């Protein structure tokens, strides 16, 4: 098991290396650089800008720039953000935690909805309960998240004013106090719930179909032939088998939420990684962009590893040696 994890971590090195080259070259291929915006500034001296470019090494060939960047990145130094004038890691750190919290709360909401609804829908399939849940799923599938999030924001953030409509914490409370934590959570609920209400529909349908598939399996009939009461047939046999693929998907789900929070963070002006990424791209803040892409890539690889580990833990047929 530990050997397997170590081996998987080692395999990540070439994968990350490849990713870094691609990311770096794509960033370089984008028109302009961090100083392009200054060119239309009448007070900026073009000769001075060129001097700064030379000083920053922006005129060097890409591989020299890459090597310089990569050797620092390996040591955890992704350089300095052009726009924030602080080390990239400092810029990212706060945002990263915001995004991770948002992802976790979203995940909790998603499964809190998906598990009971999926079980109801699968156990009582083709009844009105199932039809209602499936109806909701179809609406959820068809609703674009950016429209739905705006509606949620309008209703609960603006019209009813139950939740704050932006930010990650109330600026008036002090860090470390209980009120701070409450405020953090309060800011999380609306974006997390909006994402969860949409994202949960696929998990509901997945669980529903797994249950419907499993309940006609031979081993369920065996359980019934032993005189196991129906509720136990579900809890001990059908549900355990139906949760397998869902559990295995958990790792990917987490990565997906961390990497895919761009839209929701922008709509709720939530200072997370996604929002930072978007603004950094438009400001040509390449050092931040590349760092975020590298981290998302790393998170994706970790997510797949996590999925494999979860699967081997819950399914005895899959044992990692």
């Amino acid at each position, binding site marked *: 098991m530990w050997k397997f994890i170590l081996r998987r971590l080692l395999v990540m090195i070439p994968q990350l290396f490849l990713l870094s080259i691609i990311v770096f070259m794509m960033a370089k291929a984008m028109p302009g650089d961090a100083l392009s915006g200054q060119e239309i500034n009448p007070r900026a001296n073009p000769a001075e800008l060129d001097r700064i470019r030379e000083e920053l090494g922006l005129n060097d060939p890409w591989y020299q720039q890459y090597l310089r960047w990569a050797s620092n990145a390996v040591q955890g130094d992704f350089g300095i953000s052009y726009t924030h004038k602080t080390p990239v890691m400092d810029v990212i750190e706060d945002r990263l935690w915001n995004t991770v919290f948002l992802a976790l709360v979203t995940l909790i909401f998603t499964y809190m909805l998906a598990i009971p609804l999926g079980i109801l829908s699968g156990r009582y399939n083709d009844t009105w309960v199932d039809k209602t849940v499936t109806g909701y799923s179809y609406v959820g599938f068809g609703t674009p998240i950016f429209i739905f999030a705006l509606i949620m924001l309008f209703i609960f953030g603006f019209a009813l004013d139950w939740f704050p409509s932006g930010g990650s914490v109330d600026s008036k409370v002090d860090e470390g106090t209980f009120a701070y934590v409450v405020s953090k959570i309060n800011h999380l609920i609306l974006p997390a719930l909006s994402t969860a209400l949409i994202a949960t529909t696929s998990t509901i349908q997945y669980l529903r179909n797994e249950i419907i598939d499993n309940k006609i*399996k031979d081993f369920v009939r*065996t359980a019934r032939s032993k005189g*196991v009461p129906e509720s136990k047939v579900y809890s*001990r046999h059908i549900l355990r088998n139906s949760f397998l693929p869902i559990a295995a998907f958990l790792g990917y789900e987490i990565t997906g939420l961390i990497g895919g929070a761009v839209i929701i963070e922008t709509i709720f002006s939530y200072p997370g990684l996604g929002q930072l990424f978007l603004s950094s791209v438009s400001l040509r803040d390449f050092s931040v962009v590349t760092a975020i892409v590298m981290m998302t890539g790393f998170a994706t690889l970790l997510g797949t590893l996590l999925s494999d580990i979860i699967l081997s833990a*819950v399914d*005895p*047929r899959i044992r990692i040696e």
Partner: protein
Amino acid sequence: MNKAILQIENLTTSFRIRNKYHAAVDDVSFTVNENEIVAVVGESGCGKSALALSIMQLHNKQRTKSEGTIKYKDQNLLTLNETQMNKVRGKEMGMIFQEPLTALNPLMTIGKQIEENLDYHTDLSGDEKKKRTIGLLTQVGIPYPERTYKQYPHELSGGMRQRAMISIAIACNPALVIADEPTTALDVTIQAQILDLLKDIQSRTKMGIILITHDLSVVAEVADRIVVMYAGQVVETGSVKEIFNNPLHPYTRSLLNSIPSATSEKNRLHVIEGIVPSIAKMDRVGCRFQDRIPWIPKHAHEERPQLHEVGKEHFVRCTCYKEFYFQAEGDALTHDITQSR
């Protein structure tokens, strides 16, 4: 005369297909006595498994209805509710299924799956259950019961899995075991072992076994009595000796004729032309086998075929057996050729 354990009378089990009920088990009656193996034989689609599941009442209730009586220890199982039936299943009757890999829960250890039976039918403590389970595994001939107790189904071979399946069925010392094609999914060598095991357990516990199979060589080896089913009906019943020595019904004779034999001089294996009619489409009046023996004149069949007693405990349905003969091999061949043209 042995005591009867299970008396099935006029059992009809129908499945709903597009809002109409069609009988898959049609007016079946037979008795299983203590210390007796009753074999139910027939091709696929004859209603053998439907019969087995009806006895255990494992059919989907919304789509199935069963009529008649299944008398077990003076109670009609068909009148019991789900909770009462759960006390019968596993405790009074055990069931062995065809494919032991899919019939075992892949996520549960063998030990836990056997113990589950004890969980609902006994008051044993955890340790006692484990002891009993290991005892059962030893009883069914598993070489390392302590190890197998902790293993998952996928870690065992087919034969071992079927042994584990048998120990699930007999965990609570049931009076009756229903074995639905217990050897079909196994190697021939393993088949013999499993049959010996069943026979061995039966002789020790004096339980009754309903052995469902399409394999007549299996029947010859272990059964005491045979119930031949065709298209949901019983077409012939009798003792094994009687049926093998004096088969009467055309279907029984065709089945027996289809057993490949190492010593036979025939070079072509007998084939029963045609297929079992589907339950939704078949004609429920008249002899159900007549379409597959078209060379027998129509008047040989009864209009409403009944079971006729032809010997001691030997019953045959329809009168067509009196005029039945096998087509000469040449006839069948020319028949084939003309059809292919």
